[in-house]
């Protein structure tokens, strides 16, 4: 039964990226640039992996993920500076991030490797059986065999993010900045700083998502490595109503749709569904969710606005 591990495989990158999106958007900064951040993460992870595999051996993919997070965080600062400090329109800045990420990474690939794509990494994230848990009757075979560590990491991170956002002072302040920045300001919270944190965290998590994607699914980097996953993560975040656990659920669902669209032809009743429906399902569902047909999805109130002191 490969459906569950396959679903989680495709979902994991979406989960990380969607969680990143939550940090940014709930602080009030719209981040369309998640796609570009995944690109940066994928690129950094693969290049690092290719160059340091000899040094780090089996630990390489994990260290590469850290590098991807750092790269994503740095790159996202461009969006932060543009959108927060220079008061650029958040959406436009996000579009620029995407354009810049694809252009820059491909430029660097050509510079470093002299061709349009990188080589294949020797060690990525491959299928494993989780020790101990794999032997549990019934459940073991479905959930814990032929699966990936990164999938479970994604679930863990989602729970951690939920805890941070819902239960900690940082989370409360972050949310206040996204709902009513002036109120937060009067309570002594530095709106600009919180928004920077939100965007940088989105960069780190988006980079992580890209790094996971590249090292577990494509195993190399080219112009077509990240093609829409960032936007699908954005959709998952919205479909999940900007809630970490909701986004986890949405991402898993979208991962399910993606995995069926690929392996569906080998499964009995699923191969009757024309592929196209599975491919467009995540996008159509998000539109329906936004329209309120699947319950209202309300963005943080101050999302997309610039907070300027003295504008009373």
């Amino acid at each position, binding site marked *: 039964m490969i459906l569950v591990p396959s679903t989680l495989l495709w979902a994991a990158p979406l989960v990380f990226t969607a969680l990143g999106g939550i940090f940014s958007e709930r602080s009030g900064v*719209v981040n*369309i640039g998640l796609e570009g951040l995944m690109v940066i993460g994928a690129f950094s992870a693969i290049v690092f992996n290719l160059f340091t595999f000899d040094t780090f051996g089996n630990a390489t993919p994990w260290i590469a993920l850290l590098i991807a997070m750092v790269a994503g965080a740095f790159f996202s600062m*461009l969006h932060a*500076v*543009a959108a927060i400090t*220079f*008061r*650029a*329109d958040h*959406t*436009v*800045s996000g*579009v*620029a*991030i*995407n*354009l*810049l990420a*694809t*252009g*820059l990474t*491909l*430029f660097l690939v*050509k*510079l470093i490797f002299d061709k349009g794509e990188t080589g294949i990494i020797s060690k990525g994230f491959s299928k494993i059986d989780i020790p101990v848990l794999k032997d549990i009757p019934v459940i073991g075979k479905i959930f814990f065999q032929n699966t990936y560590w990164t999938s479970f990491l994604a679930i863990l991170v989602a729970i951690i993010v939920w805890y941070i956002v819902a239960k900690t002072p940082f989370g409360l302040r972050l949310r206040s900045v996204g709902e009513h920045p002036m109120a937060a300001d009067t309570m002594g919270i530095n709106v600009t700083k919180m928004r920077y944190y939100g965007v940088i965290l989105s960069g780190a998590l988006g980079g992580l998502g890209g790094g996971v994607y590249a090292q577990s699914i494509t195993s190399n980097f080219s112009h*077509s490595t990240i*093609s*829409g996953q960032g*936007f699908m993560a*954005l*959709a998952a975040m*919205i479909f999940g109503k900007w809630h970490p656990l909701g986004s986890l659920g949405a991402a898993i669902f979208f991962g399910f749709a993606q995995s069926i669209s690929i392996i569906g032809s080998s499964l009995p009743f699923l191969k009757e569904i*024309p*592929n*196209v429906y599975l*491919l*467009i399902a995540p*996008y*159509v569902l*998000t*539109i329906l969710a*936004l*329209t*309120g047909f699947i319950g209202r999805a309300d*963005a943080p109130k101050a999302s997309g606005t610039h907070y300027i002191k003295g504008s009373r």
Partner: protein
Amino acid sequence: MSKRVRSILTPIIAVLLGILVGTIIMLVSGYNPLAAFTALWNGAFGDIYYIGEVIRQFTPYILAGLAVAFAFRVGLFNIGVEGQFLVGWLAAVWVGVAFDLPRIIHLPLAILAAIVAGALWAFIPGLLKARFRVHEVIVTIMMNYVALHVSNYLIRNVITDHGDNSGPIHKSATLRSGWLESLTDYSRLHWGILLAILSCFIMWFLLERTTRGFELRSVGFNQHAAQYAGMNVNKNIILSMVISGAFAGLAGAMEGLGTFEYAAVKGGFSGVGFDGIAVALLGGNTALGVFFSAILFGVLKVGALNMPLEAGVPNELVDIIIALIVFFVASSYFIRVFLDRISKKEVK
């Protein structure tokens, strides 16, 4: 410094800054900026063939830019140009392949199909925005992906039988012209450029000179006042998306009936829609601005193809410069503050 001067200087400064940073990137990477820019220039203007290609390249950019700009003027962000462009392309080629009619009917029909397809594809987000207040940014992005998958599906299963390419359109539906080709050393320059220029004029006239345009601009600036004044805000929102989508669909016709003369399955987006955003932004969302901005982008994109050949520089550098220009235009607040400070010094 008058507002008008400032609004022209700002995009120019953004372009210069983009080029500056691009130059720095080249230097850091060990490339020769001078050689690169020379190669770019040669690649765009060095040969009549190249000039033809430049014009062909910026033709859809004009239309994509108009699409984004038009929506923007009414307060809407149409990021769905990629999808509307694709469905327009597909619709035009479909008509081009499926019928065989005299050119005087076939070509306009195909173009009309593209316009209608793009308009319909944009109608949905427009309707959702007007009736349900759903933000058009996300909806249009989602619609892009739906368009991609659906058009691939249609090519594979409806237009052909599991083929990846629609096959060439009939000669009676093409925008290409033997005369234009011979003029430009067999570039793919086609008549579409005339349609694009006409569209610029249409956008300007519609927005600035008609009562409909008065309403659209009012809604764009202040929906509440527009409603108070008796205007039908929802109707205008939907109309602006529809017109925007029409421009985008027409851009698709440029590619389907002019540049390529077929439609093929695609693995990703063409980028025309996103470039359209850059074009509109740089052009200040006016028809004339979009025109000049599109020309710049056409020059950059075509010229860039020569950079790897003549200077060994990857053509992605131009994509980087374009992205930077968008950043700088979007952050133009600080450019304007800077210009303000200079003009204050002048006054003293």
